[in-house]
């Protein structure tokens, strides 16, 4: 039930909700498969996404496990090269397009964005449901390509390999990604329009939670960048099927053109993956410090700065790909520049801790882990932005370690943190706090053990995508595989205790973390179908926490 609050008044923009003695929460508002598969409720769609991306996460995780097992031995005793190549392609494709890109926006964003801005749903609820169906359709194509033999191009689909020489179901795999792109675009459109048009009275832009800002910036990238990958994949199909010379130089194409097009999408896509995570971390840091975020506007604008700058750094993937040396210099400089807004965020999170009242609940542990791992990931990004160093470490395990620090150390930590943070809202239940803290620690340790040795391997010269490698490097691969097994335990634990808590956990109060924000103070746990009994009117600033206690200079 919503707490009695002076900020609740009948809304001028919508009819007051129908009064029942007890309005059922969204989980009990209709039962059966049909009520879920035809729902227009943003919260239920968020849960549908949660279930589907969890499946893909464990498929991608299985592929990674097989690769790590293979790499225990330098002679590659487990699978053949062909199989290994299919495994890393499967790992890359599912993790990038079917887990990381949808993770925070479609699950947490769908679930909380309307509540955060004081709306009953997103602007286009039917489009929202359609986006999930499209996502599933794309996923089916990808699974079909996998089950019928797989694809050996890597998630990057570099030409002319993918168009001419690759074995396997390249077109089916590419179609899966092509289709899923529309689901991304629909979600992004929905978020943009919802944020513009459906904010509650009084919720002006600088009262928005920073998570909304980051989702907004992410949505802009999604809408602008995703069509480029769609075009690129369509051109691959055209060359592979019809033999039209676009990328293959033997028939008049240019292989570099593909890399430009691919990274023009895929570099911004990296920010699609990390920006929402940064938003989640902003929410958690400020909540568990009981303190208003330091430098609200700087954090908000830095999201937009990342979104804009992220579009003009794609060439740093091509320093040694035979692009012009002058282009290389410009892209190197811009890549250093794009690190500044990220640094601003890290510094502001740190400053938020100062003079707060810090609680160490599970989401906060994830947020602190995020800051540490994201910092290492970001700083090693500078190595790669430096032309001379990239000449050595490009396409080695150094790159692998770097982006896993951002994507897994950063984004997966943020996603899991957010999932634990909003779990009381999603499920209406509390999980076992001690167990959750324990598994957060396991993930942190396992992650570092998995990926830190890969920095050393990379500087030694271990290239990516090698099922066989020189035996001197084995010790680092053994460490990495040992870490991966710890990490696997860390990921399976939340799957178990969160599932358990969904059915048997203690009932959650409306605001277990004493957080500010409409989703905590104006809705029940779990919320009713229409989120709010009465639409709220916002009279207070974002992050209206008791600290810091300020006095004038």
């Amino acid at each position, binding site marked *: 039930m919503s707490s009695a609050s002076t900020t609740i008044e009948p809304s001028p923009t919508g009819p007051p909700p129908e009064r029942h003695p007890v309005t059922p929460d969204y989980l009990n508002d209709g039962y059966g498969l049909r009520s879920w598969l035809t729902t227009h409720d943003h919260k239920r769609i968020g849960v549908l996404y949660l279930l589907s991306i969890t499946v893909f996460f464990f498929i991608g995780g299985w592929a990674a496990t097989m690769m790590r097992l293979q790499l225990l031995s330098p002679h590659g005793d487990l699978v053949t090269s062909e199989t290994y190549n299919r495994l890393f392609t499967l790992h890359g494709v599912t993790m990038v397009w079917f887990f990381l890109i949808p993770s925070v926006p479609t699950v947490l964003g769908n679930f909380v964005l309307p509540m955060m801005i004081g709306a009953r749903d997103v602007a286009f609820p039917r489009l929202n449901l359609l986006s999930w169906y499209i996502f599933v359709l794309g996923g089916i194509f990808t699974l079909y390509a996998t089950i019928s033999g797989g694809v050996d191009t890597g998630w990057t689909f570099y030409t002319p390999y993918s168009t001419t020489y690759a074995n396997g179901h390249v077109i089916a795999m590419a179609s899966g990604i092509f289709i899923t792109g529309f689901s991304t675009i629909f979600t992004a459109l929905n978020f943009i329009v919802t944020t513009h048009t459906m904010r509650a009275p009084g919720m002006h832009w600088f009262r928005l939670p920073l998570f909304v800002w980051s989702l907004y910036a992410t949505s802009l990238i999604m809408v602008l960048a995703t069509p480029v990958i769609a075009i690129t994949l369509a051109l691959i199909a055209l060359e592979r099927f019809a033999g039209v010379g676009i990328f293959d130089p033997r028939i008049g194409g240019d292989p570099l053109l593909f890399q430009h097009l691919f990274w023009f999408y895929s570099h911004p896509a990296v920010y699609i993956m990390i920006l929402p995570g940064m938003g989640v971390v902003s929410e958690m840091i400020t909540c568990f410090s009981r303190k208003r975020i330091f430098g609200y506007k700087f954090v908000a604008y830095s999201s937009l700065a990342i979104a804009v700058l992220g579009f003009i750094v794609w060439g740093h993937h091509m320093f040694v790909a035979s692009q012009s040396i002058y282009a290389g210099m410009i892209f190197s400089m811009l890549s250093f520049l794009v690190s500044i807004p990220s640094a601003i965020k890290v510094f502001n999170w740190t400053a938020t801790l100062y003079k707060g009242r810090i609680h160490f609940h599970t989401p906060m542990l994830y947020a602190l882990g995020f800051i540490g791992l994201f910092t*290492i990931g970001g700083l090693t990004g*500078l190595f790669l932005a430096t032309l001379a160093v990239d000449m050595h470490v490009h396409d080695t395990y150094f790159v692998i370690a770097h982006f896993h620090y951002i994507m897994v150390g950063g984004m997966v930590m943020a996603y899991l943190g957010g999932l634990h943070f909003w779990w009381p809202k999603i499920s209406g239940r509390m999980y076992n706090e001690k167990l959750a803290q324990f598994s957060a620690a396991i993930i942190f340790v396992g992650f570092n053990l998995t990926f830190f040795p890969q920095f050393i391997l990379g500087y030694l010269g271990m290239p990516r995508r090698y099922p066989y490698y020189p035996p001197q490097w084995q010790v680092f691969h053994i460490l990495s595989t040992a870490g991966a097994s710890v990490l696997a335990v860390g990921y399976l634990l939340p799957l178990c205790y969160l599932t358990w808590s969904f059915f048997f956990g203690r009932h959650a109060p409306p605001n277990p973390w004493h957080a500010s924000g409409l989703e905590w103070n104006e809705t029940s746990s779990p919320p009713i179908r229409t989120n709010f009994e009465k639409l709220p009117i916002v009279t207070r600033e974002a992050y209206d926490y008791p600290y810091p206690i300020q006095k004038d200079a």
Partner: protein
Amino acid sequence: MIPGLADIPFFPEEAGNSAPQVDAIYWALVGISTLMTVGLFVVITCFLIRYRHTSEANRTMLRLSPTYLEVTWSTIPMIIFTGLFVWGAVVFVKANRPARNATPIYVVGQQWYWDVRHQNGRHEIGDLHVPVGQPVQLIMTSADVIHDYYIPAFRQKYDVVPGKYTSLSFTATKPGKYRILCSQYCGTDHSLMTGYLFAMRPDAYQRWLQAKDGTGTESMAETGAQLFRTFSCSGCHGENTGVHAPSLAGIYGNSVPLQGGQFVTADDQYLRDSILRASAQVVAGYKPIMPSYQGQISEEQAMQIIAYIKSLSQPPAPAASLPVPNSSTP
């Protein structure tokens, strides 16, 4: 089976002219990153302890605009990063610029081996022999997909791209045997597309070069001259032919006027394109009647024909002794 700690490599050896320069930047980056990470870690830990929820630390602070702080912590990294950018760019440009007297060696990458040809016709598969202390320029292309020629001990790599020539320039500084790896994913046996680079003292290198091992008794230019006749190039481009075709004598390195008013320098890339895709760049004043040799002349053969065309541009005396590369520097 399990190596002792002493046997575990933590850092790759340095054996090329660029390696110490790249490593210097690397250590600077490691230093800066460690400083920032440890600094942040210490600050965060202090805050976490001092402002934990059970502590009664003073939480009153002055009402201050964050702008000064924000500007400071944006500007300081920006200055450091600019320095790193410039340093990295300078080393990169220097590493990739071939020395004037560099010995060219021709590399064709294909699934899944490196095909290497020295000017005097010596041919090797997978491995590469180079003299220590003398600049070398690899002129590379691919016969199929994109590969990447990577020598970790030199801290250098460059993509080997079908349809164009790329180059890798270095001077080996320490005799020894170093790994060559393909670092751009190229299909099934990508991880087996490896070999060794043998950096040899110049006299030993000369002996190795002359031994030839039955891999070819003719220089690249001589083989190229034969191909020039075999593929009937000489029928049009040779002396005293009735066909209106540009003469190739003295063309290498010179500026060529194209139809449409552009000028292009007749370098290796231009000659390759003109052989394989003649209609792409037609010389001003000539009709586009030359057929395409794409698929008929292999990348290796194109390199040999180019070596022949180059030899036409050199003064007669050195051209006669072309097979022996310049070994004036010890």
